[in-house]
């Protein structure tokens, strides 16, 4: 399998180009699962500012991507996460997982996005149209979503 591709960047990304790079002319991939996270305009949100820890954030994501590749039989996986100021409607994060079997791709994609949305080293500040800003606090419910992966092992590959 190809080593996971991990990037943390301010610039937008191109899901089609990333998908093509993952397929790369291979004929052993049966499917690519993906999740594209998008900034929502909840409660009059004007922008979301994502702060990261350069170095640590990339390392943490690379570690979880390697774990996904160890737990599921993946042909490859790509994680791209943006930081900086993001407006509603803008893509924030892309997860792509490729496998010869769909269950491995789907489950590992869900595993990665659950971890990224809850445990990745990012800090979010919300800016509202009113001029108010606030730092988002870690949510207990998200911990539950990420924690379920620690109890369950993936199904045996079909």
């Amino acid at each position, binding site marked *: 399998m190809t080593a996971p591709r991990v990037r943390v960047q301010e610039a937008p990304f191109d899901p089609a180009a990333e998908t093509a790079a993952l397929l790369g002319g291979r004929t052993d991939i049966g499917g690519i699962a993906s999740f594209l996270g998008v900034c929502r305009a909840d409660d009059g949100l004007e922008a979301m500012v*994502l702060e990261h*820890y350069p170095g640590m954030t990339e390392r943490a994501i690379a570690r979880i991507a390697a774990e996904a590749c160890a737990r599921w039989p993946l042909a490859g996986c790509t994680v791209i996460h943006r930081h900086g100021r993001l407006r509603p409607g803008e893509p924030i994060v892309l997860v792509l997982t490729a496998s010869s079997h769909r269950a491995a791709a789907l489950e590992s994609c869900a595993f990665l996005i659950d971890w*990224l949305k809850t445990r990745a080293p990012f800090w979010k500040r919300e800016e509202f149209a009113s001029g108010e800003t606030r730092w988002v606090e*870690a949510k207990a419910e998200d911990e539950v979503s990420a924690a379920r992966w620690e109890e369950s092992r993936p199904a045996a590959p079909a």
Partner: protein
Amino acid sequence: MRVLYFSWVRQKVGVAEEEVAPPPEVTDVAGLMRWLAGRSPGHAAAFAEARAIRAAVNQDFATPDRHVGPGDEVAFFPPVTGG
């Protein structure tokens, strides 16, 4: 020792990073937090609620009893919120 701050910890301290040379009796994360709190009113405000702050040493999450020394990179931040 390089110390980094993120999110509201950074805003309260007033800088994103600084080089510090704590005295030899500062040997772990908890001790470093107490010592940093004395550096300025901003530091004091940031570290007032020690339980609300998480730390990393050399880019790995660290508990308060984690040893710290001169060459380390230590970071303080609120619990991560994910992306």
